[in-house]
């Protein structure tokens, strides 16, 4: 390679980013990355969005990535810049979000010297990333950048850190084009057709089939969601989504049983429990989904499609493992299903649907809203109205959330027809995720309606990003379900700890209307049910960022619920239903 050494490392870095199709970087400057910021200043191809704290930058990149399918890019300085980014990196790792995070580092000759703003970034982020690099030689810089993007987006996507010592970005470096093939990392994407044939046989023989689809389908691109929809329609099988998978199957479809798991619907969980064939696609049998493992879907033969071999047989042994990209596997299943002349058991499927419809009849998400003037707003009702009003307006809507009760109510009562429109912190459960993620979504989709459904506790964890919204005139809507409690923790204290509400009441909350005002946004508030619609409409009409503070019922709990350590058929239904389910065992108490 006859590479020339005419550009600085920082310029080579930006050239490599541009060649990777990067349009936006979310970042925060500092000493070690000054040369990169100087190079950014001198060009126009890549836009930089200045966040208010590095954690916000990673969540913004996640929101950008999840709503576009592209790799999100972050740039932070050494030491505290990098350590602040760690939560976001783990979040992206748990939820399989492609992010490349560039971190500054002290010059190579100072590494290990306890220099100012030095941290062992590759050491700290090793278990927080899919992979990380420390660039120690100028010759490696361009190659490492290209490799990082490849690693971040291929296979099971995830975050990749590139640690960049200051001398590496100052000194000249050669450019290199992206390599054709990575020497060791070549994840398998094509399904084994023998396994596909076995899967189709199980599916054809099924009397009580069930499809369980997760975020892997969304990561496989919109075509995978279409293939899934086709497969469900052609087979007539019932389907449920994980929290991460919402949107990969249209929620309005009659075959959709809603979300499953700890706060999933009665019909989805009982169908998981009762099925005799379970087709899992891009889902990882997480503890929030399975409940007690030794009682999980005991009578089913299981097919598991996942691009990550380590997700298969990790928690639940399966009969037919298929390591592949979800989209490619779904298309192969479709083709094999159509080519097979094995009969299906139609009467059995019909009777299975009758059983499911009976479970559906329980209406496990039911709640009662007092519609009288001054009536206290039920949080579920606030989300239902937000859904109905945004749907009626017809504009494209993206929803992000923080973490807690409001997140589960949003998952239950806001319905998604398409993938990539629902961004929530599923695996790590990061409070403070929603606002910066919404920021990243709005940057990618300037004309769309982006709403962060929040709780009053979570929102304060990254409230500083309201400043970013103001600086870039991003009209993100923050819809706070304000019950003055860390609601999910309070709910567990009520159900499991004798209603001893230890440290879950936030006294002295800020005045969110004034807070919005201070950040150049618009604040509004709904105290009672008669004010709700007008506040939602005003929020959606407002050209600026908005904080809508919705005072909701403080005592409301999120149901249905599978208590820790319980099985799918032991779920608790809400106060609207007769007493049901089992209590929490001592072993369950020990679980989170």
């Amino acid at each position, binding site marked *: 390679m006859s590479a020339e050494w005419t550009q600085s490392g920082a310029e080579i870095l930006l050239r490599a980013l541009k060649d990777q199709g990067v349009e936006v970087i979310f970042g925060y400057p500092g000493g070690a990355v000054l040369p990169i910021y100087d190079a950014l200043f001198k060009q126009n191809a890549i836009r930089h969005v200045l966040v208010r704290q590095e954690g916000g930058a990673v969540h913004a990149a996640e929101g950008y990535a999840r709503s576009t399918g592209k790799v999100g890019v972050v740039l932070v300085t050494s030491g505290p810049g990098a350590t602040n980014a760690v939560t976001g990196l783990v979040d992206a790792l748990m939820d399989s979000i492609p992010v490349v995070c560039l971190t500054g580092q002290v010059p190579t000759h100072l590494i290990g010297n306890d220099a100012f703003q030095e941290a062992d970034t590759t050491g700290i982020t*090793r278990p927080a990333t899919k992979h990380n690099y420390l660039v120690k030689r100028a010759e490696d810089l361009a190659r490492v950048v290209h490799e990082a993007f490849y690693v971040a987006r291929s296979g099971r996507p995830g975050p990749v850190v590139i640690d960049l010592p200051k001398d590496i970005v100052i000194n000249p470096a050669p450019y290199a084009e992206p390599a054709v093939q990575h020497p060791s990392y070549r994840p398998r994407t094509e399904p084994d057709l023998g396994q596909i044939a076995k899967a189709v046989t199980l599916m054809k023989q099924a009397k009580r089939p069930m499809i369980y689809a997760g975020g892997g389908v969304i990561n496989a691109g919109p075509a995978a969601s279409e293939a899934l929809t086709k497969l469900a329609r052609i087979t007539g099988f019932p389907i449920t989504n994980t929290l991460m998978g919402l949107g990969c199957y249209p929620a309005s479809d009659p075959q959709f049983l809603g979300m499953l798991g700890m706060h999933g619907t009665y019909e989805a969980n009982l169908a998981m429990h009762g099925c005799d064939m379970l087709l899992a696609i891009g889902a990882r049998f997480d503890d929030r989904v399975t409940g007690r493992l030794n009682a999980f879907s005991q009578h089913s033969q299981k097919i598991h499609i996942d691009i990550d071999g380590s997700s298969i047989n990790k928690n639940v042994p399966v009969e037919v493992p298929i390591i592949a990209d979800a989209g490619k596997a779904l298309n192969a299943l479709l083709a094999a299903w159509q080519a097979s002349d094995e009969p299906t058991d139609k009467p059995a499927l019909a009777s299975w649907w009758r059983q499911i419809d009976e479970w559906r009849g329980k209406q496990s998400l039911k709640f009662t809203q007092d519609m009288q003037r001054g009536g206290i707003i039920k949080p579920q009702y606030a989300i239902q109205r937000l859904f109905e009003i945004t749907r009626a307006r017809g504009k494209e809507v993206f929803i992000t959330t923080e973490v807690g009760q409001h997140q589960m109510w949003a998952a239950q009562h806001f319905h998604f027809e398409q993938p990539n429109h629902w961004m929530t912190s599923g695996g790590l459960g990061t409070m403070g995720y929603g606002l910066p993620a919404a920021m990243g979504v709005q940057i990618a989709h300037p004309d769309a309606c982006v709403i962060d459904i929040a709780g009053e506790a979570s929102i304060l964890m990254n409230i500083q990003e309201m400043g970013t919204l103001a600086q870039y005139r991003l009209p993100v809507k923050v819809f706070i379900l304000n019950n003055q409690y860390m609601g999910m923790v309070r709910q567990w204290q009520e159900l499991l700890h004798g209603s001893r509400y230890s440290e879950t009441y936030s006294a002295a909350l800020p005045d969110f209307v004034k807070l919005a005002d201070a950040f150049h946004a618009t604040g509004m508030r709904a105290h009672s049910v008669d004010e709700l619609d007008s506040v939602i409409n005003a929020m959606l009409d407002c050209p600026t960022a908005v904080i809508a503070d919705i005072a909701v019922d403080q005592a409301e709990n999120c149901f249905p619920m599978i208590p820790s350590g319980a099985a799918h058929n032991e779920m608790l239904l809400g106060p609207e239903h007769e007493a049901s389910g089992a209590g929490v065992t001592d072993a369950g108490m020990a679980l989170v």
Partner: protein
Amino acid sequence: MVDVMPTTTDTTQRSATISVLVDNEAGILARVVGLFSGRGYNIDSLTVAPVDAGGLYSRMNIVTSGTSMVIEQIKAQIDRLVPVHRVADLTMDGPHVARELALVKVIGTGEQRVEAMRIADTFRARVVDTTLGSFVFELTGNTDKIDAFIELMRDLGLAEVSRSGIAALARGTRVI
């Protein structure tokens, strides 16, 4: 390449010798070891060294234990690390040879010293250092043989042991 084998919920523990071919780069050992500690797997022994002329690749040999589901999981977790080229469970893939080297220091005089030397002969251990009051034996073999030798030396003035951990290869023409 085959898909992972269907695993049972068998709870019996077994030992496994896992060989891993990795890029010989900074941090790879920390990556693999961190994976074991972070996920709560056992490492009974670990060896690592470059194994090609150019120094591009290293081979790790890890002896671990767990249920077959856990061992499958360990393999899958290692396999998805970016700098990993190949992973093989030598214990499951067929017959293999595994050897380790031990240096054993025995301090003693008189009858004990003679007995130590006699046993060392039986085990085909070599004396690599000696003084009037001590020996350092070098012994190569499988783990059981070395354990047995050390056990016998315990009554004969065993002072210190240094073991390499195992190096392993599949028998016959198979390579990983």
